[in-house]
């Protein structure tokens, strides 16, 4: 299609990157392969990447199985993967764990959506107008270091222990870092693309809405993806106090009854759901911004 330069070459094919792997790498010895894995910035085929990831996960489970079935640790402290899996199935089918998952997801959705609805406009204003940066930066910079979990007692005094309190914890945990990340994403839009719009006759409004906003949207969606992870963390903390249902309270109750397998099953479920959210965001990113891929 393009006569002078190949299209969509991988970034690693540029001359300043580490050399790309040769096509016929199979003929190379294992030690060659290993030394390539250890070369900084060397490329990896997607297939190799998947295999290595799978090996990493498999090693983790192998270690877990070895430690538990070898009798090095009592099942009370660390049950086997099989025991945890069995437990998870019975939690889902008989203990109504899905209701807990839904309760947590609902709080995350509420807290995260409110946080995003405020953080996106404020962050965009901070990143693009020195006025708003000067206005908000000192407050937000300090607030970011105040742990949302430390606000829980205050929130209980203000709001009691109902849903509003839990959603508020998620909101506080997400809002400040998200705002600052969005401000940062907005402020890093290249000066040249802004200037080129001005020289084409764009007004301040047009530069803001037609250049700065679309230019920073992909990074803003990335900031949302990263901070939704925080929401998963904070919802569990919020539920440790006065929740009827929720993954956090399920984990806490399991601990009270010394059901180690249920504690671990709960923790792993949070991790898996977090990864699913992350993947969802990545897929949406590809759909929304096809011009980046």
């Amino acid at each position, binding site marked *: 299609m*393009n006569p*002078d*330069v190949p*299209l*969509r070459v991988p970034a690693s094919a540029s001359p300043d990157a580490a050399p790309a792997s040769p096509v016929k790498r199979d003929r190379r010895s294992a030690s060659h392969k290993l030394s390539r894995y250890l070369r900084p910035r060397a490329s990896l085929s997607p297939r190799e990447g998947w295999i290595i990831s799978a090996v990493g996960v498999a090693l983790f489970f192998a270690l877990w199985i070895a430690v538990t079935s070898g009798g090095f640790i009592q099942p009370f402290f660390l049950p086997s993967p099989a025991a945890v899996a069995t437990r998870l199935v019975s939690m889902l089918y008989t203990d109504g764990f899905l209701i807990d998952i839904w309760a947590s997801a609902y709080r995350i959705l509420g807290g995260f959506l409110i946080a995003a609805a405020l953080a996106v406009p404020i962050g965009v204003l901070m990143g693009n107008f020195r006025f708003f940066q000067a206005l908000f930066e000192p407050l937000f910079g300090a607030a970011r270091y105040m742990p949302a979990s430390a606000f829980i007692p205050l929130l209980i005094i203000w709001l009691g222990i109902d849903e509003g309190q839990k959603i508020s914890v998620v909101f506080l945990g997400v809002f400040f870092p998200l705002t600052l990340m969005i401000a940062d994403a907005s402020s890093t839009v*290249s000066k*040249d*693309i802004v*200037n*080129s*719009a*001005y*020289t*084409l*006759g*764009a*007004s301040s409004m*047009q530069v803001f809405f*037609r*250049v700065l906003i*679309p*230019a920073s*949207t992909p990074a803003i969606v990335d900031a949302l993806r990263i901070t939704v992870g925080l929401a998963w963390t904070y919802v569990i903390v919020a539920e440790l106090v006065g929740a009827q249902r929720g993954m956090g309270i399920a984990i806490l109750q399991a601990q009270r009854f010394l059901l180690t397998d249920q504690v671990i099953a709960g923790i792993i479920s949070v991790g898996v759901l977090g990864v699913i959210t992350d993947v969802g965001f990545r897929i949406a990113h590809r759909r929304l*911004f*096809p*011009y*980046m891929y």
Partner: protein
Amino acid sequence: MARVVIDRVSIAFQSSEGVPRIAVAETNLDIADGDFVCLLGPSGCGKSTLLNVVGGLVCASTGVIMVDGREVVDPGPDRGMVFQNYSLYPWLTIRDNVEFGPKINGWPPERRRETSLDLLNLVGLREFASEYPKALSGGMRQRVAIARALAMEPKVLLMDEPFGALDAQTRSRMQELLLDIWARRKTTVLFVTHDIEEAIFLADRVLVMSAQPGQIMADFRIELPRPRSADIVASEEFTSYRRDVLHMLRH
């Protein structure tokens, strides 16, 4: 029509010590309509700063700039700019990039479309109209940037090392393409470069700048015949211009 007059312009920036540091010392310049002028000098000598003042992106500390008899106060579509790093809008297709200026200036869709397709023909990228910038090579992206700047029919084209990031062969082809476009469009061009050969090859006039403070210390008129092709760099005349300019730069 588009004569550019730089009248006693100097530009100072606030330095970290608080005292103003002069980037460009008082400069006077009169560029005739339709001239192709190259600003040549080592990096940091104030070429971009001077160009940005003509573009209206930086304010002069003293003096005035007149384009076509009107004082420059702001950036505007009468002065198209092309930057070294292409600065295309990655979320717009090639055609929408070229139509960006016409669109924000409220041109009707048919006229926008006609203009963008004409310009994409001119730079040889018609079949890439619906691609995104990411799919294009550096040279092609810079052709889009030129087409985008030309869409508003600027009286002056301001170019800041536009071919600085390209490989030698692409760069040479781009120079020929630019001269071809300039011959058809007859806009005034102010072109910044630090490459002596590029300056002599392109220009009617080469202005040599020196640093600290930035100032124009020589003004060469290049009388090489036009149209020029890449072979001209081997000619005796070209070599002699190069010797003179190089001599000036060494001082």
